[in-house]
């Protein structure tokens, strides 16, 4: 009795084993992630909708839609992702703290955030008025965190004199409405949503605080690009096409934006006006991030320039654009 | 001497859901206890001796009949009635002396005064040195002495004792009987003493009521009439014992304990 069971198992393994191997070896989709309700990453959704990935010969598996950048970086650590659209600041921090090993292959957008105060707030007229107030950021070491501190410094205000707390962007709007916070800074479409809901108004846009600042980037796992550079290239190509498409087909882009963020058309339209979609990698901006994160003590890098050189990999992008 | 406790036509029925489950515990019990007497009650197990005590104590309600203390009707738990339980029922979280002084504490007696009074009992009852011990550290005999002290310190008019020495071994039992008698000689409390041990009833009681099986009634009340200290193996004592035993056996044959 026992012998026949063993024989059966052995046979099963013989069949299943190679089959699994072959099934795995054939065109496995690229595992990707994006952020939830983030209009910055519209290019991904456009590429998906218009079939740009397939046209470039690859299939993409959206493994996860995450609530914040650090969670995407954790997924990279766990080996669950090949590529992702993510904020440049969390990506920098993760790599600098040796938690994940990714490189940037294209920019996704610059600007596209805003500092929002309550609609009926008459007390706060400028950044300097934020002294002693409570301001919410999406997380430490995020782009928005950096923007806020930079803007406060420009207004000659010590960031320590402002009560900075961390909230998830969806909670920011209700916190603003119930008066638990005086202001928040978040990525689009949340500031626009606050405006269309009649809850908030922009005190400053991120473009106003730091013109042309980099925001989201397209990253890939270092191990993945080493083994499957052609696939990375295909995704970058699709990303470039999608980004161009947004410029030439604004209305259609808005429709796709509504579908992907789940927000209403008026909000998406307003949000997109605040975002600059681009694929050109902003090197100076990244260097400023590294300086900022080091100053705050969130990362420790001996050779900042060397780090940036390793982290930003514009070669594939340049090849595509030269064609 | 006057009558301290009088029981007239006492009935107790536990009403059940069906006629079969109605329990008739006593069917009209009558007896009285003189002041300063030790009144023993013996009977087969399950006949309702404990229920009788609990009715007098006020822990359960009678169905009908009279319970009179010094001529006045008793209702509920009267503070003039004290009870010593077979399981001692000492408060485990209180030290020995704190257990003794509970009744005084409840009355609102000043702390120093009640402590002095309780310590007197500690000395008189041979518990010196253990006043700060917790009940878990005491032997069975000691615990029962504390329980008795706890009851007597309140000077109740009637002391009910429900098989107080039932949990003790026979050596300690004898010692405790003598202890009880010694205390009683000085205080002359009125005691209603329930036991299933005939030897004990004869050694301790002035009068002994013998109960029949359920529904219990009094078969006979014996007047012991012997001087103390009694002889555990004396001729007179043995005669009374055998009379009681005969009575119990006869009633068991007629109505086997249910």
């Amino acid at each position: 009795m026992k012998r026949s069971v063993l024989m059966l198992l052995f046979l099963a393994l013989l069949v299943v084993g190679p089959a699994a191997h072959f099934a795995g070896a054939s065109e496995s989709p690229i595992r990707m992630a994006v952020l939830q309700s983030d209009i910055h990453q519209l290019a991904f959704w456009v590429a998906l909708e218009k079939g740009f990935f397939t046209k470039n010969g690859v299939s993409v598996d959206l493994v996860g839609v995450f609530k914040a950048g650090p969670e995407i970086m954790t997924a990279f650590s766990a080996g669950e992702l090949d590529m992702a659209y993510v904020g440049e600041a969390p990506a920098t921090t993760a790599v600098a703290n040796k938690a994940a090993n990714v490189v940037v292959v294209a920019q996704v957008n610059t600007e596209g955030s805003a500092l929002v105060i309550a609609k009926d707030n008459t007390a706060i007229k400028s950044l300097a008025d934020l002294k002693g107030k409570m301001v919410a950021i999406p997380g430490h070491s995020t782009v928005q965190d950096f923007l806020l501190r930079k803007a406060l410094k420009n207004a000659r205000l010590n960031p320590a004199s402002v009560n900075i707390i961390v909230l998830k962007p969806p909670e920011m709007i209700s916190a603003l409405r119930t008066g638990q916070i005086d202001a928040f800074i978040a990525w689009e479409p949340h500031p626009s949503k606050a405006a269309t809901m009649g809850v908030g108004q922009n005190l400053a846009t991120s473009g106003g605080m730091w013109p042309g600042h980099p925001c989201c980037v397209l990253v890939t796992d270092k191990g993945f690009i080493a083994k499957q550079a052609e696939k990375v290239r295909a995704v970058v190509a699709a990303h470039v096409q999608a980004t161009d498409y947004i410029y030439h087909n604004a209305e259609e882009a808005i429709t796709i934006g509504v579908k992907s963020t789940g927000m209403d058309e008026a909000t998406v339209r307003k949000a997109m006006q605040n975002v600059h979609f681009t694929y050109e990698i902003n090197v100076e901006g990244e260097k400023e991030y590294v300086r900022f994160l080091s100053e705050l003590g969130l990362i420790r890098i001996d050779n900042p320039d060397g780090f940036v050189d390793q982290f930003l990999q514009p070669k594939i992008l340049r090849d595509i654009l030269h064609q | 001497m006057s009558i301290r406790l009088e029981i007239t036509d006492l009935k107790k029925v536990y009403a059940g859901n069906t006629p079969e489950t109605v329990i008739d515990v006593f069917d009209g019990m009558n007896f009285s206890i003189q002041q300063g007497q030790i009144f023993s009650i013996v009977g087969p197990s399950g006949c309702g001796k404990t229920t009788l005590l609990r009715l007098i104590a006020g822990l359960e309600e009678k169905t009908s009949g009279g319970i009179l203390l010094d001529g006045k009707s008793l209702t509920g738990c009267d503070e003039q009635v004290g009870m010593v339980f077979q399981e001692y029922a000492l408060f485990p979280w209180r030290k020995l002396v704190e257990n003794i002084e509970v009744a005084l504490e409840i009355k609102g007696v000043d702390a120093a005064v009640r402590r002095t009074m309780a310590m007197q009992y500690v000395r008189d009852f041979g518990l010196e040195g253990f006043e700060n011990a917790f009940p878990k550290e005491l032997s069975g005999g000691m615990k029962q002495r504390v329980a008795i002290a706890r009851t007597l310190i309140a000077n109740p008019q009637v002391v009910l004792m429900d098989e107080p020495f039932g949990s003790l071994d026979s050596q300690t039992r004898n010692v405790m009987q003598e202890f009880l008698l010694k205390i009683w000689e000085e205080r002359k409390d009125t005691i209603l003493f329930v036991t299933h041990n005939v030897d004990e009833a004869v050694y301790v009681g002035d009068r002994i009521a013998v109960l029949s099986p359920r529904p219990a009634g009094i078969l006979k009340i014996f007047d012991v009439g012997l001087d103390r200290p009694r002889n555990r193996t004396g001729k007179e004592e043995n005669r009374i014992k055998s009379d009681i035993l005969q009575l119990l056996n006869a009633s068991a044959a007629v109505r086997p304990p249910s």
Partner: protein
Amino acid sequence: MKGKRIIPPIMLLLLWQLLSATGVIPAFKLPSPVQVAAGLADLIGTGMPPGHLLHLHVYYSLQRVLLGYALALATAVPLGLLMGWSRTVCAMIEPLVEIVRPIPPLAWIPLSILWFGIGIKSAAFIIFLGAFFPILLNTINGVRGIEPVLIEAARMLNAGRRFFFLNVLVPGAMPSILTGMRIGIGVGWMSLVAAEFTGVRQGYGLGYMIMTARDIQRSDEIIAGMLVIGAIGLGIDACLQLAERYLIRWR
């Protein structure tokens, strides 16, 4: 003999260090004990977020837990004594208790913030919910577990309501109450970390500290923070055990 109990954890630590040092466990998945120790040093000296030192995080977290726990004690013990004693009261309140009890404290976070705002009150509320039910249920059981003969003895000694409550019910139920208290503080302390994820004023709290370390991917500090949380929980329980040993030394 007490020394022997330390041997298993130390062996585990050595094994962990060995596995990390040889690369069997990669550093980004699980930092080595040495790295965690360095992370702890950072938490103490530099702080996370930088400038927010560990001892202040501990202070604020303890404050929140203490408030929530004190509220739980003050409400659950008296209510439990009442419900344990009176069948009618118990029948009235028990259905409500049984409906609310299974809801995890963390599920209350959005409501809590809505009602109490972002701050110590909403965090204390979450902890209150976590600690309340174990204390309540154990108190009720404690009262029900008092030997009936003790209650009768008290009646025979003519105990009034107040004496009964303070000198029979409370000490009689105390062993169970203390058990409930130990379970309650355990649950409360565990709920704290998650309660602090959702926003703390002043930027101090152990949960907040760990969340920030997570945001910047400092897993050495995350683990160091977890160990601190565990150690404090252990310390609190040890204190309660000491109190228990004294309060029910009569057992």
